[in-house]
């Protein structure tokens, strides 16, 4: 029998809706601030709506904080630090953190559902990545609390005091874990402000913290917009600031505290290069590129937003990449089959669309998935631009969306230079089968995280943070401790 060319006999098999059940979750209509172990009404009496970006409908109301609320929270944190937390034996402190970790594991599904409803990320991601990592983070740092003497040779580490922490909307619960866990493990107390578009899992965490029996005032959560963040940063009662967000706001924070003694760590933006050499395992590299820019709708500071593909394999690689993009399902974040969820907010949607229009105007070649799109809500198709030059704005500016800028390269020198030619330096990816080439690239790329033959891997034991304008300080691992300690 001779070989057949493509047959027209076609089986059309599409996936039916596979909605995750939300019936078991408990969501209040309104959430107040969490101060001194209790839920406190906002001084302003005002609340703002938290919107589900997949439906553009309200899911709950959140307290609008102001300077009075921040002041109350900082005072509660200071009192808890002075009277209870800094005096508590470290091994007992650890037990609270272990409890929090286990409670998150017990309530994992509820957290995952609320995370997806509030922020737009697919339930598959919140269920399989965000929530487990958040629990693991608490578990890891719980173990450090009574072992700090081993982490710093010849130094006696001590807690600092009260930490002010401001987190972004792309990994709400996970970012809260990244901030709270090490701070508490090192003996500090915390005032945390979640992002205004995604405060709900932080509030559920507050309820969980109550359940864990953590002493009042050790963790305080004040909700609101950027102004609340500014209040925290400038409050005299704050000893240390931890901020994850845009580079612009990071610089603003530094300006605000320049004349003070406050310690600060910043985790800011990125424009990572994901580099594919001709000897890379191509299909796995395609996965890595897709994971790097479309995972979490591209709302990732370490996203591999610049693809550098070696010219000799450009055509086959782009073809494979496009074919793979066509299999991504864009849809309701609560559908278990959705790969790419909703853009977090209307304003972010507009920002990303702006860049897509810009790319078209600049004459770049655009490819977008032909997938079906939901009718309501804020959604954007996975997009890539080829024929991008190093000088294009799409290659320079952080888009924070599912848009990939593709450039080619010919030699190792060239790609290293281009990859480093950016004010950012958070992460990078290298795809090649050759070990010595991997170590060459990892030595020379100016980025805080280099992923070789993989991408977007996170672990509580692995330090995360950037070079240059991507920020300074590291979160995770042994290196994540020093930000929350002072040394004699």
């Amino acid at each position, binding site marked *: 029998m001779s070989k057949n060319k493509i047959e027209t006999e076609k089986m059309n098999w599409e996936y039916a809706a596979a909605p995750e059940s939300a019936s078991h979750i408990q969501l209040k209509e309104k959430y107040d601030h969490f101060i001194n172990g209790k839920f406190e009404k906002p001084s302003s009496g005002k609340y703002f709506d938290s919107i589900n970006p997949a439906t553009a409908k309200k899911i709950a109301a959140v307290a609008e904080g102001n300077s009075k609320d921040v002041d109350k929270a900082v005072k509660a944190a200071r009192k808890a630090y002075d009277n209870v937390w800094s005096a508590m034996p470290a*091994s007992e402190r650890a037990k609270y953190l272990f409890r929090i970790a286990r409670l998150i594991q017990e309530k994992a599904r509820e957290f995952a559902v609320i995370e997806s409803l509030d922020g737009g990320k697919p339930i598959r991601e919140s269920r399989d990545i965000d929530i487990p990592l958040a629990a693991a983070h608490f578990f890891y740092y719980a*173990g*450090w609390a009574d072992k700090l003497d081993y982490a710093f040779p010849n130094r006696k580490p001590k807690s600092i005091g009260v930490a002010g922490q401001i987190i972004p909307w792309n990994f709400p619960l996970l970012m809260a874990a990244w901030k709270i866990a090490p701070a508490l493990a090192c003996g500090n107390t915390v005032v945390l402000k979640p992002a205004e578009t995604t405060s709900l899992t932080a509030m559920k965490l507050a309820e969980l913290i109550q359940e864990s029996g953590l002493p009042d005032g050790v963790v305080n959560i004040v909700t609101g917009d950027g102004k609340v963040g500014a209040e925290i940063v400038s409050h005299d009662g704050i000893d240390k600031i931890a901020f994850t967000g845009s580079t612009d706001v990071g610089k603003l924070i530094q300006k605000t505290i320049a004349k003070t003694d406050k310690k600060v760590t910043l985790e800011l933006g990125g424009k990572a290069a994901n580099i594919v050499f001709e000897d890379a395992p191509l299909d796995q590299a395609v996965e890595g590129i897709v994971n790097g820019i479309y995972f979490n709708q591209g709302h990732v500071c370490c996203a591999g937003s610049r693809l550098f593909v070696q010219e000799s394999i450009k055509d086959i690689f782009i073809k494979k990449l496009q074919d793979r993009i066509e299999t991504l399902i864009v849809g309701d974040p609560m559908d278990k089959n959705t790969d790419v969820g909703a853009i977090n907010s209307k304003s972010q949607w507009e920002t990303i669309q702006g860049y897509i229009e810009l790319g078209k105007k600049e004459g770049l070649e655009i490819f977008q998935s032909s997938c079906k799109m939901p009718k309501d809500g804020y959604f954007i198709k996975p997009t890539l631009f080829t024929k991008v030059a190093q000088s294009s704005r799409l290659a320079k500016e952080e888009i924070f969306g599912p848009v990939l800028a593709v450039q080619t390269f010919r030699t190792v020198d060239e790609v290293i230079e281009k990859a*480093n030619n950016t004010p950012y330096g958070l992460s990078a990816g290298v795809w090649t089968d050759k*070990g010595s080439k991997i170590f060459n690239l990892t030595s020379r790329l100016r980025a805080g995280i280099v992923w070789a033959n993989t991408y977007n891997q996170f672990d509580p*034991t692995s330090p995360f943070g950037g070079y240059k304008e991507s920020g300074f300080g590291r979160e995770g691992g*042994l290196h994540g401790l020093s930000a929350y300690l002072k040394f004699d």
Partner: protein
Amino acid sequence: MSERINILKTYKIYIGGSFPRTESGRFYNPMNAKKESLGNICLSSRKDFRNAVVAARKAFGDWSDRTAFNRSQILYRMAEVLEGRRDQFITELMQQDSSRKDAEKEVNLSIDRLVYFAGWCDKYQQIFSSVNPVASSHFNFSALEPTGVVAIVANKDSSLLGLVSYMAPIIAGGNSCVILASENKPLCSISFAEVLNASDLPGGVVNILTGKKSELLSQIGSHMDVNAVCYTDGIKDELIQLKEASIENLKRVKSYTYDLTTAEVENPYIINDFQEVKTTWHPIEVIGAAKASY
């Protein structure tokens, strides 16, 4: 109304995740200070020890391959389960000459020590490993690997804490072990096996035998498939016996005399003592933009 007759407990040994009796069928009756028998306790034989080592070796591959996070979760779970069974252990310790106060203290310390070492599982590697700046174009790193099957001679004067204090760091580091319980205070060791069994610990990672040290010490020292021995009774002649027997396969013999009621034993160096160091080299191509340039 007549009194209810209670069910007497049979104390068996713990091998490969099961509770068999000693294959020798023998027993002994350790007594407490009031000359009361603690029960008919299995007098384990060299064959039991042999079987335990086989089980430990079988379990080692999987246990050492598990993520550190998984091991830490399991050790923490042991603490959860032990916490839930405080009363059982306090009663048994009191049966074995402890005052109530001391018994409570011992159980608390055992639980907290499990939590302590659970927290080390995914951290000791960060303390003891290194990237070495060799003078050639190589990426060179040293990392720890568990040594294998460890035989533990549990402290003769402690029924629970002595066993827990050394088992925890040894398995936290990815090793499997065979423990010879205290000869005169064996009750808690077998009850602790029940805790292990309920904690998602894979069978064979920890095996517990009861019996006479005089019979089994030579087996422990000479078995060719045991990689290390952890000895904690501080008796010079016994230590010499172990060291001499261990020469044949170069077992690592470690002797500890920590005061278990203090935090002396809570340190990561015990974990390190049962690890091997592996150093790997890999070439680094030198091409491209100089490191200093931005």
